[in-house]
């Protein structure tokens, strides 16, 4: 050992004495600085997001270095024809391999250190807290070191195995395959997830990375199994390399190094088993989920199956190993023991005649069902729990159904192109439980999951899951901070309560999120440490806008008091998933952060629109295309009226970054704008505000476009139809002067 360490020291010294070797880690650090030091003001200001992307490229490129270095360490001296005298130094074959690996690894650690230092400098410049910086450095340093350890061992092995003219091209090919080709082409094309164990670096093909709080937590199970295999495999490569070195330094017993290599190979094969077991388990679980999902052609409108739910009391406990244990108590209103449709204007559709169907996520196992305190027989099939409707007491209006259930929620899934994400998870420091996934029993509905035309799994959005239901959810056993889409009470004795009346249910997120608040501003932002500054400046800007908008509406705009803003690409099913775009649930606006989707003017507009009209404005495009019309074919000017708010706000505020108008230069909008201008200039601004408020109060919400193929489409009746004629009727009522009346009526919308 002493001799090996001395030789390793000498090898490292020889590397350090080559001038170019010290320049390369510096170059990697400069790369990191270039991408993180100065951020474009119009893009996200989250330095961790840029650092994550830079790490992907850097690690992909730098794995070439240990591979080539490994070859050179072997071939430039030890196995050079003129350097055979080195074999007479008192260093064993294994000692040579170990010494060269140690020296190369120590040298490669300079890259990790240089890149980490560059990141830390940028992060400190952007004011990130030390805890966030350390956590990021720790995560990525681990990935770098593991990749370097394996790549270097492979390089050394190739160096021993092949002459220089072959080993260098072989090492280059190994880099291309192990760092790029397997990730970019082979695994996504064939969905051979077991191939990930043979990646030289795990970042290039890891769609889970990019969220500083959740990524590592979600990826670590697979990463650690991959690391264990990678390290044992690296050990095998080193031992096999030592055995090959026996050609130049023959051992006393020739078979001994080969037996050791064989043992190491067996150990590597054994270390692969846990990794393979995880992949098999995931694959089987995904098949289970797909079996419970509705095929594309059989998708039905979930609203038809929903029955009324008066109240839901839920007590949920987190247990070790991602296990959830819960008891749900549902108060279901009935008339003579019959369910009532959640949509008052439509009769209830039964999934199976005479049975009550509730949806509960298929991974959750039901232990018991009681109706009004009496245990009953129930059936569990895929994601539904069914029992006979006749078990209800016809004398009672409210039937109390109590369901006890438990299960593991660690819902990995693979989407198009092999992209990975989680539908739901509970870990010690990361929690995501979306309301629409049915982590508590949902009344009726079609299915929780669907399949698209290519039989890919899709989640189904959370629109109006439980109209007007009173929720009381008590959570315990969770080790991390939890945030929900329902108002939270004070945590007491480790129990946290969420309570409120809601249609969208309760989505929970958990982790070391930051709460960014501004005095006097009711909206708070739940985000990652990297976004705190941007979130704060957003709140400052929005506070001004809120005051302006409230002046126009004359009422407080307080329907939203929370924004979830962090990278969400790792949750949900695919790129069109509900989780990947702006959406609102109860009092919460979800903004899935990307480099370009940040807390900019568009986010201000989305929040403004949500506060004013109850949607995020994503349906305006569809509305403009003439989707909105009344029975007699007259175009709706709902979009123009909504735009009038933005127009008026811009007019009064005189801000540089105006509230973007949803309306284009249509005839109706040109006419309306001239009316607004005239009224405003004649001192009738207040009349104008009151006029617009009439329309706003009667509903100007635009339906959100379907979020994915399984998305619930709002029926035509939910679209606000306001014709220009109706607008002018009210106009004449609110405007005292006839000179403010238009002379002609615009054609078209």
């Amino acid at each position, binding site marked *: 050992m002493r*001799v090996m360490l*001395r*030789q390793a020291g*000498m090898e490292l*010294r*020889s590397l350090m*004495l*080559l001038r170019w070797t010290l320049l390369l880690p510096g170059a990697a650090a400069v790369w990191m600085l270039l991408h993180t030091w100065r951020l474009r003001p119009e893009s996200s200001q989250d330095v961790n997001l840029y650092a994550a992307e830079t790490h992907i490229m850097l690690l992909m490129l730098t794995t070439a270095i240990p591979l080539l270095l490994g070859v050179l360490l072997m071939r*430039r*001296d030890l196995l*050079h*024809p*003129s*350097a*055979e*005298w080195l*074999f*007479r*130094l*008192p*260093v*064993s074959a294994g000692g040579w391999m170990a010494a060269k690996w140690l020296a190369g690894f120590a040298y490669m650690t300079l890259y990790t250190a240089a890149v980490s230092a560059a990141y830390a400098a940028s992060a400190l410049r952007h004011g990130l807290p030390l805890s966030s910086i350390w956590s990021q450095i720790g995560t990525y340093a681990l990935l770098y070191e593991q990749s370097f350890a394996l790549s270097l061992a492979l390089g050394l092995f190739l160096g021993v195995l092949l002459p220089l003219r072959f080993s260098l091209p072989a090492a280059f090919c190994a880099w291309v395959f192990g760092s790029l080709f397997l990730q970019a082409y082979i695994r996504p094309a064939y969905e051979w997830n077991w191939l990930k164990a043979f990646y030289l670096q795990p970042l290039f093909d890891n769609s889970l990375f990019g969220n500083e709080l959740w990524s590592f937590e979600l990826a670590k199970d697979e990463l650690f199994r991959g690391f264990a295999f990678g390290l044992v495999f690296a050990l095998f490569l080193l031992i096999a390399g030592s055995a090959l070195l*026996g050609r*130049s*330094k*023959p*051992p*006393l017993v*020739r078979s001994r190094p080969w037996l050791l290599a064989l043992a190491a190979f067996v150990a590597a094969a054994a270390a692969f088993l846990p990794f393979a077991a995880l992949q098999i388990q995931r694959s089987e679980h995904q098949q289970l989920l797909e079996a419970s999902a509705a095929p594309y052609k059989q998708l039905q409108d979930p609203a038809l199956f929903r029955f009324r739910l008066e109240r839901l009391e839920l007590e949920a406990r987190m247990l070790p190993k991602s296990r959830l244990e819960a008891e749900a108590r549902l108060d279901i209103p009935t008339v003579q023991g019959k369910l009532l449709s959640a949509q008052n204007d439509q009769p209830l559709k039964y999934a199976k005649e005479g049975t009550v169907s509730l949806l509960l996520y298929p991974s959750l196992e039901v232990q018991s069902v009681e109706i009004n305190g009496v245990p009953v027989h129930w059936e569990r099939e895929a994601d539904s729990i069914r029992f006979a409707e006749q078990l209800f007491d016809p004398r009672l209006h409210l039937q109390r159904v109590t369901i006890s259930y438990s299960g593991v929620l660690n819902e990995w899934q693979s989407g198009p192109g092999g992209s990975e994400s989680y539908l739901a998870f509970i870990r010690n420091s990361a929690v995501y439980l979306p309301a629409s996934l049915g982590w508590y029993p949902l009344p009726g509905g079609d299915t929780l999951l669907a399949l698209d035309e290519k039989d890919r799994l899709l989640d189904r959005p959370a629109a109006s899951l439980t109209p007007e239901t009173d929720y009381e959810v008590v959570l315990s056993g969770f080790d991390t901070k939890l945030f929900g889409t329902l108002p939270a009470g004070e945590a007491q004795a480790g129990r946290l309560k969420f309570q409120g009346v809601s249609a969208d249910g309760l989505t929970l997120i958990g982790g070391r999120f930051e709460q960014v608040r501004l005095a006097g501003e009711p909206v708070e932002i739940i985000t990652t440490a990297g976004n705190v500054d941007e979130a704060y400046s957003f709140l400052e800007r929005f506070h001004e806008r809120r005051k302006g908008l409230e002046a126009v509406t004359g009422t407080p705009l307080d329907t939203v008091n929370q924004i979830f803003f962090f990278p969400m690409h790792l949750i949900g099913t695919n790129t069109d998933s509900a989780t990947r775009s702006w959406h609102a649930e109860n009092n919460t606006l979800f903004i899935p952060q990307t480099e370009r989707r940040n807390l900019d003017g568009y986010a201000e507009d989305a929040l403004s629109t949500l506060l004013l009209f109850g949607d995020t404005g994503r349906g305006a495009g569809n509305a403009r295309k003439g989707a909105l019309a009344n029975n007699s074919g007259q175009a709706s000017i709902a979009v123009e009226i909504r735009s009038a708010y933005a127009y008026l706000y811009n007019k009064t505020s005189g801000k540089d970054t105006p509230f973007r108008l949803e309306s284009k230069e249509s005839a109706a909008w040109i006419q309306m704008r001239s009316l607004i201008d005239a009224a405003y200039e004649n001192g009738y601004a207040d009349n104008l505000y009151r006029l617009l408020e009439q329309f706003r109060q009667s509903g100007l919400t635009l339906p959100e476009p379907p979020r994915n193929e399984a998305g619930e489409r709002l029926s035509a009746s939910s679209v606000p139809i306001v014709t220009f004629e109706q607008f002018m009727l009210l106009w004449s009522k609110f405007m005292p002067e006839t000179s403010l009346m238009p002379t002609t009526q615009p054609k078209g919308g």
Partner: protein
Amino acid sequence: MMLTAHSLGKQYKTGWALRPLTLELGTGLHGLLGPNGAGKSTLLRLLAGMLAPTTGDALLRGSSVRDFRRNGSRIGYLPQNMRVLPQFTARQWLMHAAALQGKSSLKERTRLTDDVLEQVNLRDEADVPARSYSFGMIKRLGVAQALLSASDLLIVDEPTAGLDPEERIRLRRVLAEAAATRVVLLSTHVLGDIGASCREVIVLGRGRLLYHGSTQGLTGFAEDRTWAWETSENEWRHMPLDGLLSARKSEEGILCRALSERSPSPFAQLVEPTMEEGYLALMSRHDSEVLL
């Protein structure tokens, strides 16, 4: 005996590189001679434990030269061609070699390094990176590291090739000094190096051991076969060249020496042979035996 080889042989797919031979070498300087392709380098590498034998084994103080645990730091080896990493100085290399030998104290390592640097006359260039060394200096550095590494057995392959006469003489002296306590095996094509310093000599030919014994014994192969005579230039031009060893112009004609069973000239007289003539006599006898 410190170094013994029993039936030591090496066979490749193409045939025997070294047919099984048995040797016993004690402390002292031993020369190894043989034409190109005779198996000298194979024998040296087998004895240095850098090649696995096909038959037999070589033992140093009773344990195999490939027994790393026992003999890892007892054998020094200097191959024919030597390369060192150019960024290191001679001192850095030698200090490292001393450290690997288990010399833990810096003082001792420094003393040993200074000693060998002095012995190979590299002290003045000891702190200059090897990239600026000449071929001869690298060779001397190689000898120095082999000396440092060899407590029992020192194997040197063509150490004097490329050295100027002064350095050659110095190196012979160094090897002779080293041989006082070790087995030193010197392979060379320069018979003068062996004649000047070796007590015993090993001769290989076509992968076989042809001779192992004293230098006088080798000379003896040319006994009664070495002829000398003086002849005129005209006669010399028409003379057959078989067995002719040398022809040197004298005042009266040309002085010739030849190896032959019979007198090559009526004027030829048997003379005292040299070791080189003994070696040539041995090789020619071996060649004719092989041809027969």
